């Protein structure tokens, strides 16, 4: 049956089974390929999106379970203050290598920064350890989150 979902502020109608993971609705039905497939079991975090601001693994989120929640993806995360700071810090510190996991990393980091503007190292571990980076950019991710937090503190 058709489902109406709110993606990045726009209502989109998709005609798929209710158990279809949001990931495939975004990527294949709506053509928003910034959200990535990594494992299909919520083990790697590549597919992370926000549902009402909460970092959520879209690969195990059935489209039929979303109802009126606001979905935000990497394509629109730069519109939020936290997202823009995270993206800037990512560029300033050259975090990215192959880049495939970075959509998910940025979505997790943005949700962290939005809920905890000054995260500790253990906050970062807790929020980010679900996101695998095979290129091993973890050190720069941690540094970039701290830089973005500093920019938040300075109102930048």
């Amino acid at each position, binding site marked *: 049956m058709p489902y109406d979902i709110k993606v990045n502020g726009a209502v989109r109608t998709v005609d*798929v089974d209710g158990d*279809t993971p949001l990931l495939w609705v975004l990527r294949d039905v709506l053509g928003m390929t*910034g959200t990535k497939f990594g*494992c299909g079991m919520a083990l790697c975090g590549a597919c992370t999106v926000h549902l009402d601001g909460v970092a959520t693994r879209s690969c195990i989120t059935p489209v039929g379970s979303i109802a009126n929640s606001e979905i935000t993806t990497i394509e629109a995360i730069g519109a939020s203050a936290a997202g823009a700071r995270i993206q800037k810090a*990512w560029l300033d510190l050259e975090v990215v290598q*192959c*880049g495939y996991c970075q959509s998910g990393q940025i979505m997790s980091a943005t949700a962290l920064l939005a809920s905890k503007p000054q995260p500790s190292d253990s906050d970062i571990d807790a929020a980010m350890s679900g996101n695998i980076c*095979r290129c091993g950019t973890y050190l*720069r991710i941690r540094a970039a989150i701290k830089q973005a937090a500093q920019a938040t503190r300075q109102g930048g």
Partner: protein
Amino acid sequence: MILDRVASPAAKPVQPSANDISRRSFLQASAAAGGGLMLSLRLPFPVAAADAADSDAFAPNAFVRIDRDGQVILTMPYVEMGQGTYTSIPMLIAEELEVELSQVRLEHAPPNEKLYANPLLGVQATGNSNAVRGAWQPLRQAGAAARAMLVSAAAKRWNVEPASCRALSGEVVHPPTDRRIRYGELAAEAARLPVPEGVALKQPKNFKLIGTPAKRLDTPAKVNGSAVYGIDVRLPGMKFATLAQSPVFGGRVKRVDDTAAKAVKGVRQIVRLDDAVAVVADHMGAAKKGLAALAIEWDEGSHAKLTTSDIAGELERATLKPGAVAQNIGDVDKAMAGAAIKVEATYQVPFLAHATMEPMNCTAHVRSGACEVWVGNQAIARVQRAAAEAADLPVEKVVVHNHLIGGGFGRRLEADGAARAVEIAKHVDGPVKVVWTREEDIQHDMYRPYWFDRLSAGLDQKGMPIAWNNRFAGSSVIARWLPPGFNNGLDPDSTEGAIDLVYDLPNLHVEYVRVEPPGIPTAFWRSVGPSHNVFVTESFMDELAAAARQDPVAYRRALLGKSPRARAVLDLAAEKSGWGQPLPAGVGRGVALQFVFASYMAHVAEVEVAKDGAVRVRRVVCAVDCGTVVNPDTVRAQIQSAIIFGITAALHGEITLKDGRVQQTNFDTYQMLRMNEAPAIEVYIVSSLEPPGGMGEAGTSLIVPAVANAIFAATGKRLRKMPADAATLRQPI
């Protein structure tokens, strides 16, 4: 970064001679390309339909093109997979061409091994950490020749001596008269000049770009979701497919019940191949659901009972018989007979999967007499051949579009995924994107070989090594991938890191026994041969130091009389790590040293082993001499990356077989190092004017023995079989 042109690079293949990288051959190639594969970095220029057939364009060689409108286009023979090659290679050309990095646009080279083969490999491929090494001379020369022609064209126009002109930021200037003219305005005139030979390259002291921390050109698109990887390709009318391949390598499909799968909403078609079944659907969600609903009965074939221990046993037995002599120095047997102390050990390393974050995928469209493929691959000429074979078409009928790579690590030097996609696409009307599930990706990888090594050494009365014997057995990836590279039972990859050691060893004998494991395919994996050899060599060197009751750094240092660059990185790593300073109980430091991929590197790892045997790498100090550094920020990033990659292998990495099946399936059973486990990493770069060494992989091979040696320092337990096993490190209660 976007893919803004549909290419047909193979529509009219050009066959210039290997040495004929001339303007004419490139213009032919470009004309055939009809605009080429434009991987356009949306940096300074709007996406333009650069017309390579433009007769007024200036294209002195296969790498540089300057259009009339001043657009500088660099054709990239290497592919970006995170290693920064889309920045470091343009830096080489831009340095000599005298343009800013921000003035260039990149184009991905079409499959053409004559023009774009890596000089160090002889084939068009990105691997073995040799893009910068291979490009160092030719791409700077390409830039220099172009610059000289532009200067000549300007001098001719002004009727002045070329020597009185100079090139600067995309212009030729004539300081005495303060005249200047942009490259684009000179393109047509420069194109009519002969290509000069042997233009002098810049002295390092005059470098403006090389050695500076340039911003990566591919990064902006990777932080906003707009970067297009192979898996992101979208085409009109495209279907989505996923597949189940025989769980036992070499097995066949016996029977398929697809009734339930066909009933899944969105499933369009079931494709049955000899050894795989694919579900074609409107989206991957439906394809996966359909795949789960398939009932497939397999004829498992001859490997149905295979286990890892069968393979390890065969390798172990192989090391009892002579192999091909990879290196012999002096007389090991004689020296061993006179040794005061003898040390013997065997080592084993497991099969490893690549587990690139972007699962294997390829999009294919097979039409009557033609085939088109969209993929991210390290070796696209190989993809073109594999697709042609699968489609039963001549190679020139196959068009390959290359994309950004979401992790290569050697996996995407292979074309099996492209061949598979074409096999499926032959049965599908229209384009089909074939995406492997993570489980298929791990269970049908092509694996880093299992290796078994048998070593012995003799020490003199002072404890120094006078005899070194090493015989190892395992698969030769080169023998399959690049057969001419396998000669007399040897290949340069399988032996790298086991021979030509930095140490003064007066009597050394190394043999390799090639044994191909049944029922499991092998392939290159980040740091390739050294991923195995350096672990063994540097662990065994540590054993010798322990047998001699000497400090591992001092012991190595005493053997480095002929290797000042190796000694320098060892000293630097030791100093920066605080080598010798006390550590808490359960914590140890381990050192390892190597010269592979033409770079010298030393690591000191600091490791904590808990009472339950859990290992945590707390800190890694790396000192590197990789010759001239092109982009120092990328060198640091690659070393950090390679260390994390290697720690994953040292602590978690192991692919095992039972009943012919790979037992690991996803990131729960094939674990990756995560943020909370990542150590602090410090990188110290030794300044050098030597030619550049490779940087993509060296950090991986070296960290494994550094961690193993640190575990020995912390616990007294020597790990001779990877990965580290908590059960063997657990302290008795």
